[in-house]
C-alpha cells in the first residue's frame, strides 16, 4: 500500500507521502486523500474515471491532480479506491523545473520571498490518471472527514535517496 502520514497543522490537515518514483508519489497522495476521507476498504473498484491534468511545474501538477480527484467526490459523488497515473514532462526535462524551498522550511528561518513570477507560465507538465472506485453510497460508505480543498501552502515535492517525498496542506 502507498505510504503517507499526517502532520500537525493547527487549523488544517497536513499530509506527508512517499513514492518510489514521481508517479508512485502522486498515487500515494491520491490514496492518502481518500483514505483520510472515508473507510477505504469498503470502497469497491466498480468503475473507472480517466482524466488528464496539466501544471506549470511538479507542485502545480500535484495540486491540479488532487483538485480533480476531490472534484470526483465533491462534485460527482465518486469515491476513489485506487488511482494509476502516468506523468509526462512534455518538452521540459525534469531538472528544468525550478526548485523552491517550502514555506515550512522558510518558516524556521527568514521570510524568504520565493519567486512565483519566474515559474514557467505555459503548463509543461501533463498527467494521465485512471481512478477506480464507485459512487458514494451513504448506507455502505462511512465518511470520516470532509476535505474542502488542497492548498499551495507549504507544498513540496522532492527527491530523496530512497525515492520521492511530498507534502501538502488541505483545508478541512
Amino acid at each position, binding site marked *: 500500500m502507498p505510504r503517507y502520514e*499526517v*502532520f*500537525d*497543522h*493547527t*487549523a*488544517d*490537515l497536513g499530509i506527508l507521502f512517499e513514492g518510489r518514483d514521481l508517479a508512485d508519489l502522486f498515487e500515494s497522495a491520491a490514496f492518502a486523500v481518500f483514505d483520510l*476521507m472515508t473507510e477505504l476498504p469498503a470502497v469497491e473498484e466498480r468503475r473507472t474515471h480517466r482524466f488528464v491534468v496539466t501544471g*506549470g511545474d511538479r*507542485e*502545480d501538477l500535484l*495540486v*491540479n491532480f488532487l*483538485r480533480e480527484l476531490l*472534484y470526483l467526490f*465533491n*462534485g460527482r*459523488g465518486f469515491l476513489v479506491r485506487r488511482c494509476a497515473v502516468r506523468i509526462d514532462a512534455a518538452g521540459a526535462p525534469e531538472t528544468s523545473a525550478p526548485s523552491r524551498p517550502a*514555506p515550512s522550511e*522558510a*518558516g*524556521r*528561518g*527568514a*521570510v*524568504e*520571498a*520565493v*519567486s*512565483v*513570477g*519566474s*515559474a*514557467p*507560465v505555459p*503548463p509543461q507538465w501533463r498527467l494521465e490518471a485512471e481512478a477506480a472506485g464507485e459512487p*458514494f453510497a*451513504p448506507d455502505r460508505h*462511512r*465518511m*470520516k*472527514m*470532509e476535505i*474542502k*480543498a488542497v*492548498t*499551495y*501552502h*507549504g*507544498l513540496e515535492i522532492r527527491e530523496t535517496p530512497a525515492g520521492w517525498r511530498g507534502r501538502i*496542506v488541505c*483545508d*478541512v
Partner: protein
Amino acid sequence: MSITLQKLDEHRWLIPPSGGMRVPGILYASERLLKEAGGQEGARQVANVAHLPGIVRHSLAMPDMHWGYGFPIGGVAAFDLEQGIVSPGGVGYDINCGCRLMATRLTAEDIRGRLADLVAALFRDVPSGVGSRGPVKLSAKEERKVLVEGSAWAVAQGYGAAGDLETTEDGGRMAGADPDAVSDRALERGRDQLGTLGSGNHFLEIEVVEEVFDPVAAAAFGLAPGQLCVMIHSGSRGLGYQVCDDYLARMVKHAGELGLELPDRQLACAPLASGRGREYLAAMACAANYAWANRQMLMHRTRETFEKALGLSPRELGMRLVYDVCHNIAKMEEFPVEGKPVRLCVHRKGATRSFPPGHPALPAAYRPVGQPVLIPGDMGAGSYVLAGTEHAYAETFGSTCHGAGRVMSRTQATKASKGRAIGRELADRGIVVMAAGKGTLREEMPEAYKDLGQVVEVADRAGLSKKVARLRALGCIKG
C-alpha cells in the same frame, strides 16, 4: 533570521517591515494568546500578507490569530482599489462563512427536560455532515437567482420574513454578483446543498444568555439574561469552496504575468482593477449570497423544528434574527485614511466586521450602540455578543476577532482525547451534543481551542469590540 515582534502596548505587537514587506504587521494579542498562536507561523503569514501590492497601512491579525495557509486565520488586510489586489486565498475556501444569532421568547426553564428531544429533532431535521443534501434541488434558473439575491431569495420563497434582511450584514445580499463568473462545477455543487449545515467546525447551538455586560446594548439587540437563543455557524458549502479553488488555480497560472514576488503561492492574487480581479469579485459575491440564503434557510428550518418539537405557535416561540455576520470575505468599504474617507477592499479571513455606533450600514435599532459582533466558541463553550467600536473603525478597518481559534490541530486533539468520551463529558456539564461525523467530537473537543474568554477579553480591552453578553451552550448539533 526569524520574525521579531516589538511590543507596542499590552495588546499590540509590531512586525517592522523587512525584505519585501510593503507595510508593517500588527498583531492584536496578549502574551498568552501570542504563545498559543502557533509559534512563528502565524506571525510569518502576517508578514507575508504585507508583501501584497497596494496594501494600506498595516497587515493585521486579530486576537484569535492562528496558522492558516496564505493569510493567517484572523488576518485582516485592506487594499487600494487602483494599486491593490484581491486574493481568493485571503477570503478562504468557505466564502462568507459566518454566524447568525436568533433570539426567542423562551427561557432555559421553558425547555427543561426537553433539551435532548429538541437536539435530536434538530439533528434529524437540519441536514449536516459530509455529502448531505438540502431540502431543495435548485433548477439552473433558480440557482442563478439565489446567487444574485441572497437572503432575499430565501425570504421570497417563504423561508423567513422581510425583517430578517434588515438584521443581516449587507442586507444578506452582496452587490455585483454575476453567475456567469461562477464555473459549471461550482454551480453543480451548489444545486443541492442549500439549507445544509456542513461539517467540521460548523454547528447549530442552543444557548442561553448567561451574563450581560452592557445592558443598554443588550437591550438594543433584544437580549436579556435567561433568554433562549440559537447560534448557527455555516457558509457557502461546496459552491464557495469551488469558486475559491477555480480562481486560485487561475491566479496561480497567471501569477507570472504580474511579475510579483510572493512568499507563498497560496497568496496568488489579481489586481482589483483587472478583468480577472473583477471576475473573482463577481463570483465571490455569488458565493456570499449563496451563504446568506443558506443561513436564512437553516434558520427557517430551526424555527419550524422548535415549533414542532415544543408544540408552540410562531408567536409563542417568537424566534427572530438578532444579526448575521460574515467572517470570510473581501468587501468594498469606506474608511478614514489620513483624515479622508477612502474606499478600500478589505479582506477578512476569519475576522468579523465591527462597525461603530452611528454607521449608516447598521439597522436603525442598533445604530445607537454599534453593530452586533457574534463570536462563537468551541463546542460547549457558548458564545459572546459584542458591539462594534469607533476604535476598530479607525485602527483595524472595522474588524475584530471571529472565534476562539484552534490551539491543537485536529490530529493532536484526536490523540489527546484518546480513551475519553467527549460526548459524555459534555453531557455531565449539561450540554447535549450530536455529531454526524465519526471523529468530529474528538477533533472539536473543548481543549482544542483557545479560551474564548481570553480572546474576547483582548478584543474588548484593545477596543476592537465591546463585550455585550455571554451565552452558555445547552445543546449542539455538528456536521
